[in-house]
């Protein structure tokens, strides 16, 4: 009886590891999609309404069901608490500090951090061309991430299940 329970536990835990690997990939594609939407939102607000950046951040921090909400809330808090530091610095450091916990990886983090060099600093046309470049970079990263999810996602899950079964067989 104990052997059966142990075997089930081993299979379940390795399956869970495999599924977690897949979820990590799917979380990354989701967050990349949300960043692309946020960049589109910022672009539209700058282009159409000339909305000040703090107001745009405020709107983004109030969007429900967005995984990016904590980033914008934290960014606004930092701006209000340390207003002597530049906006570029706050954008840069907030993304650096929170991105990994949200499932982002080095490539997209760097792309977004580079946005700080022009966001809010130049006139609308220059910022928009920068934002479009950032968007296209994010789209290409997202495309690779989706491919990785399709190729590796199921492999991770199957490997997890297989590893569990093999471990049980070896123990038995």
């Amino acid at each position, binding site marked *: 009886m104990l052997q059966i329970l142990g075997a089930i536990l081993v299979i379940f835990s390795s399956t869970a590891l495999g599924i977690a690997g897949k979820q990590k990939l799917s979380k990354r594609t989701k967050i990349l999609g949300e960043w692309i939407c946020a960049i589109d939102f910022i672009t539209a607000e*700058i282009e159409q309404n*000339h*909305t*000040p*950046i*703090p*107001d745009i951040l405020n709107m983004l921090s109030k969007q429900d069901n967005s995984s990016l909400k904590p980033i914008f809330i934290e960014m606004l808090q930092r701006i209000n608490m340390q207003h*002597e*530091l*530049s*906006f*570029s610095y706050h954008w840069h450091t907030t993304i650096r500090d929170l991105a990994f916990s949200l499932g982002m990886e080095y490539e997209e983090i760097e792309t977004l951090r580079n946005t700080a060099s022009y*966001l*809010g*600093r*130049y*006139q*609308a046309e220059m*910022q928009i061309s920068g934002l479009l470049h950032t968007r296209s970079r994010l789209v290409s990263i997202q495309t690779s991430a989706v491919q990785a999810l399709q190729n590796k996602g199921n492999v991770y899950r199957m490997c997890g299940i297989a590893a569990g079964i093999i471990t049980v067989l070896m123990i038995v």
Partner: protein
Amino acid sequence: MKERTKRFIQACDCLTPQIKNILIHIKECEICEEIRLRAGKPIYAVWNDTEHKLGEYIVTQNNLQEILSRAARYSVHSYSEYIAQGFLPLDGGHRLGICGTAVINNGKISGIRTISSLNLRIAQEYIGCADSLMPHIFFKNGRPKNVLILSPPAHGKTTLLRDLIRQVSNKGIRISIADERGELAALNNGVAQFDIGIHTDVIEAPKAEAVLLLLKTMSPKIIALDEITSPNDLKAIDYAGNCGVGIFASAHAINIDDLKNRPLYSEMMKLNIFDIIISLEKHENTRKINILQGGI
């Protein structure tokens, strides 16, 4: 802390921490009128009509870009109309003048691309500076005269005009200000940061449009506007004058002859709008008010 020191520090808020730190330690902050920042050059502050070098720190182009974005609340795009005119209004009525490579669209300046220098003008309030002018402002029947204040830039036209508005308004006369650059009243959330009197209404809009709007909506006894600069301004004040509304205005000129030499102002003089013309003379840190025409 004295009011003028507070205003100086408030103006310095848009600067980068390094530059602000150099400035807030100068002894002359109470008499400082402008801060001059040029790419590749040290910081200069203006007092007593002279530029004084402050330390050895060299201002970089990146510093200037950062100051501009700070002044614009990190939203340079939201102030593009102002930047196209070469300045940015700051909280407290201060003003950041901008120089650099202009972006031209359809023959007009639509922005400034690479900033080469900035001029932070510190707005000051001198309550009572129009005292000596007050006996000349009213006709015998109590009706206010149309007033024109002349002086070269940075001689205190706006400060004098503001105090004149305050004193006349406090006498119970309804004044409306067309404050295009936000320097007369310096509205913050609708509240004037300068004392402009109790019976004063303010609109922040292009002067010509603002004058017509005020006439329609606020029924003012006097309309005040700083710096007549375009034919449209002239048309608007002529129209207002013909509607029986008094005008308080200012213009860039040394004296009446200088005024008549300029096409726009010579047109204005032909219209015979102003009852009293005043000029301002600057001697180091003091100003002398001369009544050129129309005193008692």
